[in-house]
């Protein structure tokens, strides 16, 4: 689903150049539930932006659902965002002037989905997050958990190839956070690919697989080198290449 090779991204902060991502390689298979974990400033948000096609890498290769994103132009990136990626943000990012229904409908309008089909998909997405009875409420009339569920419904309505969640529980109390995580697990069980970004290891624990990122690099699990001294992983990508290896590491 996601195939990244040697992604580099630099930022200029005044005269200093900050290496936000320093040769990140990463694979996510279809149907996986992956958590990217790292402290603030580790480059995980930059990684998420690049995965989400909100930002372009300086170098490296990135394929999403078979599409080569590296060479994509502005228009193509827009389409990829629209059709392949469902964003869920920490701050929900709902449009305050639109009600629940309209917020979920918006990406479908941009996709030019026909009105009848649009209505069907919006309603089924809202059913899925059990918010069908809050259709005409504006975001400011909903609780934080409800708002995040609207955001999830908005992501689901597009039937994206991958759901990208950036600290989805960061603005929620722990109980609501658990509810939302429960929802992610449900979505995963029904076959969705989910990429979760968080700094909270307790949240990351709930994912199927975890990838640590620090200082713009994928961190090798320290234990691995000691367990298999004769066969070190050559790259971080290899270390993080799927659940099988992860399991080996645990042995």
């Amino acid at each position: 689903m996601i195939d990244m090779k040697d992604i580099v991204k630099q930022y200029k902060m005044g005269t200093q150049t900050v290496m936000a991502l320093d040769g990140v390689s990463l694979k996510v298979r279809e149907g996986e539930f992956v958590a990217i974990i790292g402290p603030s400033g580790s480059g995980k948000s930059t990684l998420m932006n690049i995965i989400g096609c909100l930002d372009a890498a300086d170098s490296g290769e990135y394929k999403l659902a078979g599409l080569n994103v590296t060479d994509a132009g502005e228009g193509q990136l827009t389409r990829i965002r629209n059709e392949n990626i469902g964003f869920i943000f920490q701050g929900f990012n709902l449009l305050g002037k639109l009600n629940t229904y309209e917020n979920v409908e918006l990406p479908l309008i941009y996709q030019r989905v026909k009105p009848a089909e649009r209505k069907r998909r919006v309603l089924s997405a809202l059913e899925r997050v059990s918010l069908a009875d809050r259709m005409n409420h504006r975001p400011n009339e909903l609780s934080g958990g409800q708002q995040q569920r609207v955001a999830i419904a908005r992501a689901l309505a597009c039937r994206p190839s991958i759901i990208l969640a950036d600290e989805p529980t960061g603005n929620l109390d722990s109980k609501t956070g658990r509810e939302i995580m429960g929802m992610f697990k449900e979505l995963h069980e029904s076959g969705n690919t989910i990429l979760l970004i968080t700094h909270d290891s307790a949240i990351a624990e709930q994912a199927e697989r975890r990838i640590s990122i620090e200082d713009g690099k994928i961190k090798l699990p320290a234990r691995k080198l000691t367990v298999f001294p004769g066969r070190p992983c050559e790259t971080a990508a290899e270390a993080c290449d799927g659940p099988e290896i992860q399991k080996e590491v645990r042995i």
Partner: protein
Amino acid sequence: MIIQTIRMALKAIAGNKMRSALTMTGIVIGVIAVVVLVAIGQGTTSSVTSSIEGMGTNLLTVNIRTYKNPITTDDLDVLKQNGSISGIAPTLTQSVTAEAGAVSYDSGSIVGTTPSYESIRNQTVVSGRFIKDPDLDNRSYVAVVGVDIADELFGTRNVVGETIKVDGYDFTIIGLLEEKGSTTSGSSDSQIIVPYTLAQRLYSETSVRTFYVSAASSADVTNAQAVVESYLNSRFGISADSSDNTESISRYYSVFNQSDMLSTLSDTTGTLTLMLGGIAGISLLVGGIGIMNIMLVSVSERTREIGIRKAIGASRGNVLTQFLVEALVVSLFGGLLGLGLAVGLAGILGRALSMTMVISPEIVILAIAFSMCVGVVFGIYPANKASRLRPIQALRYEG
């Protein structure tokens, strides 16, 4: 998609009613100014044009200034033989006070003339008849009067057969002229038209001082003017060499060409209309700058919204269209509202100031098109700015 975009624009406009209303006001005032001022300009043009046309088209007015070699009706008969001249009528005009019983009217004028005056000056008799040749031969005391005379002296327009006293002489009214309204050179509504021969006798005038010539067609006007001028030149002994010396000629006579006057006047009023429209256009421009200002504020206010839209799949074109449609809707609403108010205002002004206001379809289309143009021109910069926002920066923006 377009319907959705318009719906979104309406929502955004409705979400900020006060601001939208104020922005619209700029356009509304601009459009009112353009439409009303141009209506005044065009109204003036049309009333001037129609009053000149009311005096008769293809018309030459000849004034004799000298008493040497006096012109007589015989000279006019000679001129009339020319093919480019269809009619010729001498006039003798005096300001008079007219009386009927105890009522008097002192702003009338008596005009002695011949039957051809009727067609040359586009006069229409609504009841009774005009002066006829036998009236001239008999020097009959008959008069054709304008509506003001009838209204002031008799209080009715049913005046044929009544007697009117002018300078001590009694005249029988034989006809009533059609109402012309005010014209630029005195109204025929306050005229008392009598046989030319009688007027000559009453005012002891033997020579023709003023006469009207009508050309056979509008193409013949220049021809007819040349014929009249060359006849008068030879009559007054003005040599061909000095014929271009207009100052010396003007001591003898002057020929006034109606179509020259018409084109001069319509040029003037046309310039006036353009100037008024231009001044009003400036206010529309100011309204447009208001739209741009508000749109720019709106773009930076809604940076986060733009970021969200882009993140969930709005393309540059979507965002551009959204903001452009918003600007267009504001300007179009403003334009339509302004147009409605302008039509009302023009009606009220026209009645209050008894001015002719002409709101032509062209100006309606122009006002709407111009206000939409203003919307597009001044909306494109903010809309473009919005569409160029990078989604991550827009999402991070804390507005």
